[in-house]
């Protein structure tokens, strides 16, 4: 199904499917089916041209890094503000100029099913490629307006826990004097994107998606990250950001999507199996935008896949890079076995792990059915040596493995917390010290109180434990 068909024909299909006009009983409530599309859809003038678009050829600019918005220097924030002020001013001084801010916002509206448009770039494999191209030309226009073609958009790295608030430059001052501010946002300067929308579980799932259909979707379906974190952050910010038709009116949109773009880049780097689609139907998708010189351009999906060499921007290291090295595959090197406190490392396993440690691979230890006390909320440190557990030196200890938090569902324990956990720890950096021991590893848990004080020392019990090795490219 092509994008041009999606809105009209698939909508028609949908109406037919539910029996609209065919005598079938609708399962919707009254009013939900009032398809008053023409009366209520977002009005956005086509940002394009009837002229034939000129194919985008080559970008010879130096490669420059897109930086995290929260880490910009004062001068870089000022440059960003100058660029958006110039873009907003252009909308006021020459409303017909396609480089003005209102027109730039309309580009998103138009390509997302605005009135009269047959294009919808969401909900399919167009999502990542189209937005990358959109930001690319948007970035070039901003650069042109401030006379600096080395300008690069910043990204809002909401996947970093310390950066879950709106980047300060976009939130303060919170008035029209700040070209990066938008008064419709529901999210205030001190609000944070919640953990469940962008936290470790979400990001691990996204960055380990098995193939592009799971990551970026197919011709007719979306991938995992389009719903979360992407969609969830749109809803969290709210206001203009909450709707396709208006999202481009909020400057944070471009910073948000730069991070979505970075996630795509990180996913590609995460494994040699994380490939983009090779189908010509994908590679030959063509997207159209005005460039910084008001020339109507066409760029293919194939041309945006390598952002460094073709689009001349890079990203800084990912916080996931330690967690997700360039994996070829995870190899389980020991079958699960019942664990009562100790784990013997036989000669074969020792050899395998030692080889992994010297080859630069990542080694993890997995505990299935790890038993934790659930009488109160606490953090339990895991040690591979009982004496080290007694000493409770935390990360200073060579036998320290990691921590297992236990948070009760409610203080009265009306909704009991499961006493078993599945825990995985990366032990690559401690592997050599662990292997020095000839005796079996003796695992123990050490309770840590709310102020870091040492509590109970408990023998570790689990239903199974195994190691895995990440083969690194």
């Amino acid at each position, binding site marked *: 199904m092509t994008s041009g068909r999606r809105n009209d024909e*698939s909508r028609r299909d949908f109406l037919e499917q539910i029996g609209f006009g065919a005598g079938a009983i609708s399962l919707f409530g009254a009013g*939900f089916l009032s398809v008053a599309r023409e009366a209520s859809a977002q009005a956005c003038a086509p940002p394009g041209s009837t002229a034939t678009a000129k194919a985008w050829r080559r970008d010879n600019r130096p490669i420059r890094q897109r930086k995290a918005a929260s880490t910009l220097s004062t001068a870089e924030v000022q440059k960003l503000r100058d660029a958006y002020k110039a873009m907003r001013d252009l909308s006021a001084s020459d409303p017909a100029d396609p480089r003005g801010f209102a027109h730039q916002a309309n580009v998103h509206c138009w390509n997302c099913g605005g009135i009269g448009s047959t294009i*919808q770039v969401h*909900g399919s494999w167009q999502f990542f490629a189209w937005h990358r191209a959109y930001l690319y030309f948007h970035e070039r226009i901003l650069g042109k307006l401030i006379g600096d073609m080395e300008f690069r958009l910043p990204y809002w790295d909401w996947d970093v826990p310390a950066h879950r608030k709106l980047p300060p430059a976009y939130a303060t001052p919170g008035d029209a004097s700040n070209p990066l501010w938008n008064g419709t946002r529901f999210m205030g300067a001190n609000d944070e994107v919640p953990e469940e929308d962008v936290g470790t579980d979400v990001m691990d799932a996204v960055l380990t998606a098995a193939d592009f259909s799971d990551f970026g979707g197919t011709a007719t379906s979306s991938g995992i990250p389009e719903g979360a974190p992407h969609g969830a952050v749109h*809803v969290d910010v709210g206001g203009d950001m*909450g*709707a396709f038709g*208006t999202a481009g009116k909020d400057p944070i949109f471009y910073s948000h999507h730069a991070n979505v773009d970075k996630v795509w880049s990180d996913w590609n780097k995460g494994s040699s199996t994380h490939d983009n689609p090779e189908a010509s139907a994908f590679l030959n998708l063509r997207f159209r935008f005005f460039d910084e010189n008001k020339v109507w351009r066409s760029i293919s999906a194939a041309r945006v896949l390598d952002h460094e060499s073709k689009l001349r921007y890079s990203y800084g290291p990912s916080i996931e890079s330690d967690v997700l090295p360039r994996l070829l595959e995870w190899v389980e090197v020991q079958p699960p076995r019942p664990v009562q406190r100790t784990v013997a490392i036989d000669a074969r396993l020792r050899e395998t792990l030692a080889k992994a440690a010297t080859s630069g691979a990542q080694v993890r230890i997995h505990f299935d059915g790890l038993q934790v006390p659930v009488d109160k909320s606490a953090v339990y440190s895991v040690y591979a040596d009982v004496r080290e557990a007694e000493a409770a030196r935390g990360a200073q200890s060579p036998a320290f493995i990691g921590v297992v938090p236990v948070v009760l*569902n409610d203080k009265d324990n009306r*909704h009991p917390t499961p006493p078993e956990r599945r825990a995985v720890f990366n032990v690559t950096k401690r592997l050599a010290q662990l292997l020095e021991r000839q005796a079996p590893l003796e695992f123990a848990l050490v309770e840590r109180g709310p102020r870091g004080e040492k509590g109970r020392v408990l023998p570790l019990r689990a239903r199974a434990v195994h190691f895995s090795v990440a083969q690194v490219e």
Partner: protein
Amino acid sequence: MLLAAGSDPSPPGSVQQLEVALPPEWQLSVHVVLMLEDVTTPRGIAFKVQVSARSEGDADVPLGGFGVLADAAGAEGSRAPVSYRVDVTRGLRRWGERHPAAKTVTLAFSTLDGRSRPIAVSWRVGHAFLKLRSDSTKSAVLAQGAALE
């Protein structure tokens, strides 16, 4: 053919449920992905969907979720059906530790606003199933058309 429906907006705080079959040996899969197809949502409301595994007598176990953009604030009518994928691997494993013999799982769907407060939304799912992603060729289609209740 649409087999499931959320009719009038559910009151804020209410949760819709459907039951899907668990693929054989799902615990051994690298990924378990919840596929929601033919998802129809209103055009005028941005909201989030939070999916949890539900068992009688236990607290819900969060599995994941997704955000749904509006076309335009206040727009009437519904959007053309789309599909969503949610990786539910970690949450489902946590739930599975307490229900190792389960053949099905009840999924509870909550609708939330941008501040993660429950809101009333009319939306519906045509097909729901769990897909195993141990490798790119292994998948299982189960429980097509499970009903939201």
